[in-house]
């Protein structure tokens, strides 16, 4: 009797797990993509970037600021980008050079909604970056999908 009970429990659990798997199929997922700029030794005071999803499986649902206090506030962006696949983000700070970040800095995070089981394919283009004097500087861009815990 006990054995029958255990078997029944396992079967129930299996059925529930199967249902859950079916329910998860076709669900959309949310991912956070961190946007980085590496200004090397130059203090980063302003930047303008363009991020676009290239395989059409994701859309932008939110944008937040970066890690440095300088760029903690959300950047400027066109609200029309939300629910679409392309956005231009930009920000600046008039803080003193000593307070500005340099090296690799997360300047923003873009939140995407996309179809489950699809790989993210995206492109990040630097429009411009400048130091505290407003002088254009070169910087390397990178984006990384934030790993879920």
């Amino acid at each position: 009797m006990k054995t029958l009970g255990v078997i029944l429990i396992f079967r129930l659990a299996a059925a529930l797990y199967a249902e859950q798997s079916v329910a998860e199929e076709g669900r959309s997922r949310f991912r956070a993509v961190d946007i980085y700029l590496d200004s090397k030794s130059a203090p980063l005071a302003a930047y303008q970037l363009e991020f676009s999803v290239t395989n059409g499986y994701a859309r932008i649902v939110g944008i937040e600021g970066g890690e440095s206090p300088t760029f903690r506030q959300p950047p400027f962006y066109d609200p029309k980008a939300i629910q679409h696949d392309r956005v231009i983000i930009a920000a600046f700070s008039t803080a003193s050079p000593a307070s500005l970040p340099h090296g690799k800095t997360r300047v923003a995070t873009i939140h995407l909604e996309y179809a489950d089981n699809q790989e993210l394919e995206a492109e990040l283009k630097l429009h411009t970056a400048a130091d505290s004097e407003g002088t254009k500087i070169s910087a390397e861009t990178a984006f990384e999908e934030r790993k879920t815990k």
Partner: protein
Amino acid sequence: MAQRSFMAELSKHSQDDNLEAPPRLVSAFKKLPDEQIFVPPSIDETVVMAARRRLTSQLLPRSRWFRWRLWGAATALIVAAAILTRLSTNRPAPLPNQAAFIPGDLNHDGRVDILDAFTLAKQLKSGPQLDLRLDINGDGIVDERDVAIIAARAVRLEKGGRS
């Protein structure tokens, strides 16, 4: 009768006194949040251009002789312009700072991007700005709202977010 008109006069004065507001109320009225409506430059241009068209045309007399003179002058101008254009083909291109001012292009690099907003923000930080070309929203004040307008233009998506 005399008393009635006196009372009417008294009542009128009393009523007029009651039409004055105390200074504190007047001050509160003046501080009421003012609706800041952004007037796009395109509206200003429409009105100003309409005024120029209408008012300039009012100046032209209708005499035939004057019209002939006008045509003659116009022809001479066109010929002169053509000659000058030919002569100027070998002239070097105007320096960037001599090019037409693009509203919002404060660093004169030929486009409006975040660096222009940054430039204005830095200038504002250094002190009041009196250059009217920096008054992007045309409200008579050069301030952070003009910075925000430039930044908005910098990130504007032409195709509505679609790549």
